[in-house]
Structure formats: C-alpha cells, structure tokens
C-alpha cells in the first residue's frame, strides 16, 4: 500500500508523513486503529475529489493556519488528497484563466465546495465583489451544483466578526443562505486544520459527512466543551484561580475562569488536538478561551475578560455589568418596600384605629 501512495501523490510527501497525517485525522475522528488502512486507501486513491474553495468576506486566516501548520505534512496532505481547482490564495491561475477553471469545474464535474468568509447581504451584497460579481451571486451560482459544502471558519459558518452588532454589511454564514445542501460547519478563528482534514477524510472514506450537532458542527471535533477537557480543570474544581494576568496564580498555571475564560461555554477539540503541532492552544499558554467556535461570539462572548456579557438597556445608552444592575434593582425594590411599609404605618397612626376591632 505504501508504494501506491507515492505513485499517486506528490513525491515530496513521504510515506511516514502521509501515514502520520491520516492517523492524526483518524484519532481526531475517534476512529479505531483498524480504520486507518481504509482511510489511507481512500486518501491514496488516484481519484482526488475536486474542491472549489471560495473566499468571501474574511482575513484568509483559516487558509493561512492550514498552510502554515507546523506539521507541513498535514497541509500537504490536505492539498494532495484533494484536487484544488480554485483557491484564490494558492492557485497559479489568475484573471480570466482562474475564472475559466472555476466555471469548468462547476459546470462539468462533481465537486466539494469549501467556503471561507462571510457573505454580505446588505445593499445587494456589494460589500464583497470578485470578478465583477457579488459574493451572494457567486455562492448562488456555485452552491447548487456542489455535492456538499464545508464552511470553514467562524465567518463562513456564523458570520464572524463582520456579523458583530450592528453588522453593517449584513454578513451571514453559508447555511443562512444555502438551505438545500448538506453543509458542515467547521467554526473557529481559525479552526484546527485537523478538524478540516478529518471531515474531508471522513467524506472520502465513508462517502458521507460526519455526524453533526445542532449547529452542523462535526461531533468528532465539536462534541464536547473545552472546559470539560481542559488541562486546568483540576484547578477550577479545587478553587485555584488566576485573579489577574501576570499574578502568581497565573504563573502557577491556575484556572483562568475568573479572568473570563469562555471554555465552559465553548465546544471545540482545542484541549485535545491543540495547534501548530507543538501542543499549544490558548489556555495552555495562559490566555482564556474567547469562544470563537460559537455563533455570534463577538457579541455574546464579550467582554472577553469577564464571565458574562454586559446588560444593554435599549434607548438609554446604559451598558453595565449584570450584577451591578441587579443590585440596583434589588435596592430599589427594598426601598419601595420600605416606603410602602412606612405609608401603611403612617396611615395607621393618622387614623388611629384598625378597622377590624
């Protein structure tokens, strides 16, 4: 089997690296060791699925993190098991030639569509235009012909930072616009390349998309909360907390709950799979999770360094901590009770007699 690998794939990718990449993806998928040969076979078969990769309103960080993962084999594996017919960042073609490649694949071949970036919908979508067409038009043209769609990154899944209130460009995720196609959401800012590779390999091996949660996120990567798998969890249960960044507890590596870590609210495999092949992720280097895999995280997870969002009272411009408002409202309630009681007592004193005697 190992020999067939090199006949079909880029000779730069050696056997060891290839197997390592597939094994990583199998582990991330939670598949048994016995499945690895099947996956290797699927990944090594000459029939590479055609992939169109559309970039819309985004920073290209998802592609960057994919290409710059410090396991170079992983990035190369992704690029080698798929035939990337159109990808604005890495394709050699430009201008009309690039457009031609896109239409050639869309019209003549089955393909997987990967979308990176949100789609602006306000003002007829003019806030993001490529080759004279709006992102909405391009998606409407390409998506119906795709066999499945993978939305990579929080922008393509839930709108991302562009969709943060007041969402000036009306940015939305792919699944808000495309309703009749199987869609896998792989959110994250950026998501782990292993989650993307795992989804692709799952599709290649089993010919169907992985099991997903209510937000269409594959369960193998987004099935559990960060908090429940966190290496600092023991410090949480045993009451050892960082009070502020740089304090002694921070140096000791204690729990970041009090400085606003959103691990308890966020589903992702970060603590298990980690990033960049050097076993790091935000919490391991001393910064709390900001919840980037969750819908509307710019609005619901901020302030990043507090536990809960602040209360905004519309029309008044009041933005305050929930507990401060709660204390005030409770104080006003107590004062009202005091006034009520005083009025009753005062009235009783004036009348002099209770009516029931």
């Amino acid at each position, binding site marked *: 089997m190992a020999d067939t690998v090199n006949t079909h794939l880029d000779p730069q990718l050696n056997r060891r690296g290839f197997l390592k990449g597939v094994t990583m993806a199998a582990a991330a998928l939670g598949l048994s060791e016995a499945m690895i040969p099947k996956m290797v076979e699927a990944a090594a078969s000459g029939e590479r699925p055609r992939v169109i990769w559309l970039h819309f309103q985004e920073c290209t960080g998802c592609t960057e993190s994919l290409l710059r993962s410090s396991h170079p084999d992983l990035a190369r594996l992704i690029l080698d098991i798929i035939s990337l017919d159109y990808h604005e960042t890495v394709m050699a073609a430009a201008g009309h030639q690039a457009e031609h490649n896109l239409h050639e694949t869309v019209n003549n071949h089955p393909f997987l569509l990967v979308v990176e970036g949100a789609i602006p919908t306000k003002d007829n979508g003019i806030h993001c235009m490529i080759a004279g067409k709006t992102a909405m038009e391009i998606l409407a043209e390409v998506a119906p012909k795709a066999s499945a769609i993978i939305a990579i990154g929080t922008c393509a899944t839930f709108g991302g930072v562009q969709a943060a209130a007041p969402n000036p460009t009306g940015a939305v995720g792919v699944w808000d616009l495309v309703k009749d196609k199987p869609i896998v959401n792989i959110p994250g800012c950026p998501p782990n390349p292993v989650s993307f590779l795992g989804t692709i390999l799952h599709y290649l091996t089993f010919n169907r998309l992985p099991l997903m949660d209510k*937000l269409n996120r594959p369960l193998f990567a987004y099935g559990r*909360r960060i908090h429940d798998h966190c290496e600092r969890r023991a410090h949480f249960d045993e009451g050892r907390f960082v009070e502020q960044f740089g304090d002694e507890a921070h140096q000791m590596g204690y729990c970041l709950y*009090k400085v606003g870590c959103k691990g308890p609210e966020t*589903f992702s495999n970060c603590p298990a799979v980690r990033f960049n092949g050097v076993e790091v992720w935000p919490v391991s280097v001393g910064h709390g999770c900001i919840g980037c895999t969750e*819908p509307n*995280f710019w609005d619901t997870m901020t302030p990043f360094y507090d536990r809960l969002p602040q209360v905004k009272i519309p029309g008044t411009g009041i933005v305050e901590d*929930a507990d401060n408002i709660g204390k005030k409202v*409770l104080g006003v*309630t107590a004062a009202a009770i005091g006034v009520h009681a005083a009025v009753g007592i005062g009235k009783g004193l004036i009348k002099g007699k209770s009516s029931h005697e």
Partner: protein
Amino acid sequence: MATYEKKKCWSVLFRLFHWMYALSIVTLCITGFYINGPWTNTMIEGSASFPMAFARFIYFTAGYVFAGAIIIRTFLYIFGNKQERVWDILPITPRNIKNLFSTILRYAYISENHEVRLGHNVLAGLTYLFTFVVAIFMIISGFFMLFPEVATWQGIGTAVFGNQQWGRYLHHLLMWWFMMFALIHVYLCIWNDVKEPEGIISSIFTGDKFLHK
C-alpha cells in the same frame, strides 16, 4: 368582634412544593453566585479540598429539588384542590378580574376593602404564574448547561438561547427576578398577616387559613 372559621386551604403536596421551591431558591442563589464568581481562592495544592466541585454539587442537588418542585406545581395547577388550580387565579372570570383590581387598590392604600378569598388573590396568583414560567426557563437553561452533549437539551437550548453563553447569561439575569420576588413575597405576606388575622403565614406550615364567618 369578628369571628373566624378555620378552613383547609393548602394540601400537603402544595406545602411540600412551597418549601422545596423556597429552600432550593435560596441555595441556588448562594451557590450560584459562588459558581459565577468564586470569592475564595487558594494556592494550596494536593489537599483534599474542592470548593468549586463542592459548590457545584450542592448547586446541582438544589437544582434537581427546584425542578422537582416545578413538576409538583405543574401537577397541582391542573389536578390540585380549588385554590391550587390555575383557573383560580386567571383573570378570566368577573370574580377574578374584580379581585385583581381590588387587590391593587388595597395594596396601594387607596381602598380598605378586603375580599374574603380562600386561595391566592389574583395579583399574587399571576405573579406566581409568571415566576413559574421564569422557573421553566431556568430549568431549560440549567439542564442545557448541565448536559450540553445530550442531543435533547442541546436541541432545546440551542433553539431557545442560541449558544451556551447566552443560556448562562439569561440564567444569571433571571436569578435576580427570584431574589426580587422573594423580597416582595415575604414582605407582602407579613403585610397581609398584619392587616388581616387570616393566618396567611402559618397556612404554609399548617395548610389552614382563618376566614370571616
């Protein structure tokens, strides 16, 4: 001199509900505040002390008592005695609408007129009903956070709250309603006990009220 007659008002199950509800709310507020913003801290490692795990254990236990109380109340709203059923307090009959306004006027010291009524007055009953609805939201958001991986809770929670953080946020905000409610509830019980010797406070222990003959 008015004469009073002892009347059976609240069933044993209703009183059980009340005290499960009351005690679990107090426990949930205190441990809930701790879980949201743990006010203790330590640098001791390797000791057998688990303040957060302990607080969470107490919290979840109280949460189940709270949910149990709401199940009992749901049952009583439909199958309880006359005073306990939901129809007794809904302002849909002329008697109940009249009682709603007379209660508001009486609480505002505008009228001294006290309607003899065995169960809740309609204003109180509606407040309890509202609190019951809030409690259901607390239970949904609570189980959504406790069992994030269970498809049922994930489905309901995601549909109602969007994500875990928003469920947590509303769970926290709605807690303040229970604290306000408790304050007003206890005050008005004392107020009514002072105004009318019906034994409103003892009724939640004994189940009996005293009404004008």
